[in-house]
């Protein structure tokens, strides 16, 4: 009686591959395997291997563009790419879900003229790792701060500003965190020459 939109706990493995690892966990992780329908080849004469089933999306009940990800290959369970102005709203929804902020990473895609900000979240009691990505233009990198939702983002955003120069609008104290107080350079940009 499970519908795809019902919240289901996530197991850290694909159901056909390794069920042993799932049942060995003891404490706060419930280990109900998730039922996934595998598409069958339509023509029995062609002995093609069925394409691997897409990984299930544990946050399908949220109306956000999350996609399930193969944990064994990538290390997280679902990810979403959102527009920069939706980052705070997504953070609020994930906060209500009970997730915790893991870290904020900046990536400088110089060739494409964009900077990517990656927000990692983890759940303290369920096996769930969520990644939210967003891209901002490289010449004027600005994005809203999620500090009001997750106070822990304060230091992560300061660090990302130090390394990339991304300005987090609304941040109370965007001064250098790891670099010297009077630093004006951003070392992790790809065009930074020491």
């Amino acid at each position: 009686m499970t519908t795809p939109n019902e919240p289901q706990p996530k197991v850290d493995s694909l159901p056909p591959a390794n069920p042993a690892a799932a049942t060995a966990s003891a404490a706060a992780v419930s280990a109900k395997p998730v039922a996934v329908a595998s598409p069958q080849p339509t023509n029995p004469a062609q002995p093609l291997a069925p394409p691997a089933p897409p990984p299930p999306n544990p946050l399908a009940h949220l109306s956000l563009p999350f996609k399930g990800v193969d944990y064994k290959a990538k290390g997280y369970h679902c990810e979403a790419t959102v527009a920069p102005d939706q980052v705070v709203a997504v953070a609020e929804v994930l906060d209500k879900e009970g997730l915790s902020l893991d870290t904020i990473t900046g990536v400088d895609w110089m060739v494409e003229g964009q900077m990517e900000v990656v927000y990692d979240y983890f759940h303290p009691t369920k096996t769930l790792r969520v990644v939210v990505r967003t891209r901002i233009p490289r010449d004027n990198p600005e994005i809203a701060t999620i500090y009001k939702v997750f106070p822990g983002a304060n230091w992560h955003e300061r660090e990302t500003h130090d390394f990339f120069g991304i300005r987090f609008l609304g941040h109370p104290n965007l001064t250098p965190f790891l670099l010297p107080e009077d630093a004006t350079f951003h070392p992790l940009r790809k065009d930074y020459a020491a």
Partner: protein
Amino acid sequence: MITKEAIMSNGAPSETFTLNLGPQHPATHGVLRVKMTMDGEYIVRAEPVCGYIHRMQEKMGENRTYAQFLPNTSRIDYLSAMTYTHGFVGAVERALKLQVPPRAEYIRVITSEMNRISSHLVWWGAFLLDLGGFTPLLYAFDDREKILDLLESITGSRLTYSYFRIGGVYNDVDDQFLKGTREFVAHMRPRLKMYRSLVTDNIILRKRLIDIGPISSEMCRKYGATGPVIRGSGVPYDVRRVEPYSVYSEFDFVIPTFQETDSMARYLVRMEEIVQSLRIIEQALDKLPAGPVMAEKVPRVLKLPAGDYCYATEAARGRFAVRIVSDGKEIPYRVKLRTPSLSNLSLFEEASAGMLLPDALALMGSLDLVIPDIDR
């Protein structure tokens, strides 16, 4: 307890002064500066200033190949170096879909758990040094010498082991190491009983730690604090159980969790973790399979497929995660190190407001910070 309101209502003046717990101070474990605005003995605001040992590890990650960056990982948190190397090596193996042989996985678990015990022993000694008990440090270092000698016999180093390789470990363990490890486990258990009766049950220590520095589980969640900080607040979050990596799912161990949220709870979590690590080591020694210790067919030149890959391990201080962004070349495009001490310290400002100075220092000691872990 003396409350600030009681003092203020009796007409105490309300000027504040700035006290600088400078980068050089016996109580901060490493070069951490805390700018404290004090109202008499009470802290109005404690602002940690980091960056005194910032070595830009992430930039180094963009200038070295995957194999060349491996020694850097030991130096991020030198007390718990094995688990940090494990995080990086695991991310690369995950991306390349390398199968690590089971013997190497078991050896990784044994050495990581021994490293965890030695890290907790250093924390214990240094924490008690902060609180004024000078002797347990020396007792802890006595036990730690045994671990360091054992690990030196197979890895060659005492502190920053670069023992794991991409695909396994580089040196097999011999019988002398296995015998020595069993002897160590047998030696350590009575020592822990002695530590319990000498230190943990001491009334002065209990008065110093019980009900001091409460950190609610909600605050932990908002700041991303992990490790013994969140386990001392009642949430049994341990990466080895929630996202089992390596062969941790095959061991039977308990995640120590205490509900009291005070400094004593975090203290007891770590002491219990030493007991559980001893259990894991024993089980791993019993189950150690024979076989090779390096995967076959590790490519000479490591080029990860484009995309990003994460791997998380449970270090002694909390959740350590590596995120490698690769563009298909042999040098990573971006290496992000998510270190536990940074998230653990970020809640210090909010948690220490209104506390007395010695209590705030006890709270900071119970967070178990290693400053190079924060600054990288």
